[in-house]
């Protein structure tokens, strides 16, 4: 059943143009980012590897946004369009419905990664860091995408309107980006390290910086994997073990 639901959702999202619109916007943002990074690099304002780190981080940040929006609309959008009830009336288990929609909402992330490859490749200027960047970008990005899509769906299951679920999701998303705006002195302080360790977005960013720009090994930076992994596991548990079986026609119904 989940496969049927995934296929149907996938076709609706891609053929309907929703994902393509977001990917087009994503392409524009990556183009602007890449241009600015390339300019900075040429002016020797930013080292090459740091340029690549920023490009990969931007890929993840923009790509997560698409997944978050897809997840946030997945259930509450069906409620608004009055198309959820027929699904709930089939013998499909509610968990299967959520699995199918989750996988469909994840589908833009690989596409976003693929779109980012030429940008990262160009900015790396043939340096070996490209392959490391693509690998770690895929790992951290996929881990984060799972968490963000899952979070979006979690909020969507418990929201009666897409407006509410989108608002909550975007608020949380913005909140997670705030640490990146804090001064470097703070980020290097003990408090800043703690914030980086528990904020999955900041944590991913720090790991990428240390591995790609500073050449650290995994053994030295594993601590920055903890937050993304724990948050992802927590969200997956809440989504599939707790919320999915409680999927209802109205979010506030018994």
């Amino acid at each position, binding site marked *: 059943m989940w496969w049927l639901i995934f296929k149907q959702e996938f076709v609706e999202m891609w053929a309907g143009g929703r994902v393509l619109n977001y990917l087009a916007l994503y392409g524009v943002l990556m183009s602007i980012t890449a241009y600015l990074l390339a300019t900075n690099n040429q002016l020797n304002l930013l080292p090459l590897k740091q340029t690549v780190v920023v490009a990969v981080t931007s890929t993840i940040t923009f790509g997560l946004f698409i997944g978050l929006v897809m997840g946030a609309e997945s259930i509450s959008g069906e409620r608004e369009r009055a*198309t959820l009830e027929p699904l709930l009336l089939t013998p499909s288990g509610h968990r299967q419905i959520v699995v199918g929609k989750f996988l469909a909402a994840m589908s833009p992330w690989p596409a976003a990664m693929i779109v980012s490859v030429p940008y990262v490749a160009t900015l790396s200027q043939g340096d070996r860091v490209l392959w490391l960047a693509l690998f770690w970008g895929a790992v951290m990005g996929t881990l984060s995408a799972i968490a963000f899509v899952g979070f979006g769906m979690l909020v969507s299951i418990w929201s009666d309107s897409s407006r509410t679920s989108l608002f909550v999701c975007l608020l949380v998303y913005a909140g997670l980006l705030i640490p990146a705006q804090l001064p470097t002195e703070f980020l290097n302080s003990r408090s800043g390290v703690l914030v980086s360790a528990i904020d999955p977005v900041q944590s991913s960013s720090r790991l990428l910086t240390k591995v790609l720009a500073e050449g650290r090994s995994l053994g030295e930076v594993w601590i920055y994997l903890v937050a993304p992994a724990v948050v992802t596991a927590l969200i997956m548990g809440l989504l599939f073990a707790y919320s999915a079986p409680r999927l209802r026609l109205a979010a506030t119904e018994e």
Partner: protein
Amino acid sequence: MNQVPDSRSNGQAEILSAQDLRKTYGNRVALKGLTFSLKAGRVLGFLGPNGAGKTTSIRILTTILRPSSGHFVVDGVSSEHPVAIRRRIGVLPEGLGFPKQMTGTGYLTYFAQLYGRPAAEARQIASRLLEDVGLQNRADSAIGSYSHGMRQRLGIARALVNDPAVVFLDEPTLGLDPRGQRELLSLVQGIARGRNKGVVLCSHLLSEIEGICDDVVIMNAGEVVAKGSVAEVTGQSHANLDHLVRIRVPATSIAMTRELLEGLPGVEHAVLTDERAGWLGVKLAGSLDGSGPDGHHVRNTLLDALIRADVPILGFDIGGGRLQDVFLQLTAESIQ
């Protein structure tokens, strides 16, 4: 595949039964003990004003909501097995939405597959159902291009995709023009009689429902106020009705007719019950109830007086024979 229980071996088998279903939301009681049964091949009408509990009842019986207490059985399957029940029912919810980009064929094929049919068989089922509901010429058109009536018919087709034992239709004629209503109700009747299914129909269209329902449950404020066959319900309430004769005259003749009637022996009073349509309700005096030899005489006297006064008689009805009268009588407290 589903086992067909022995109780379905004949057209009179009980296909749906509910026992004391209740639903509360905190301190608010939405449903106060719903008990009824439905046999295969019959249409049961769920009638009641807004907020009576009809949709709550339907949602409980279709496993969308859990009852606070009570239980029900669909085609031999207890309410403790909601997934098994969903395999045996088809539902057209009120205000159902459709994916605009999908075609009618694609939509029905998708749902047939969700009910476990292989893709090829699902497509055949879709094709057949679209023909049954008269959409074969628009099978490959996007649902977004369908009219409201076409979407309702598609919804009914989807409700039949798993060959259910019981079909629930919640306000299926809402928003349809009179022709569309008639066609759809004819389709509903065909589902019950032609396919030997139980049909539960929620509607406000009393006059049309009266024509196709075999049984009726009238609800008000979460309670069942009357139930049984249409004949039983209208007959039981016959003696309680105030207006036992109804006469319809043109708007310009209402005042004169009323004065004329109230001056006749045997008539207690005449009141306007439907100003728009021009219906007057006439209560007969004393023990006369409009039936039997005395009642005949009074009715003939009424008609004679009107004819002699040259009043155009547009309609004449012996009160107590209409479901609408019963419905209004029993739910009068909630209609202000």
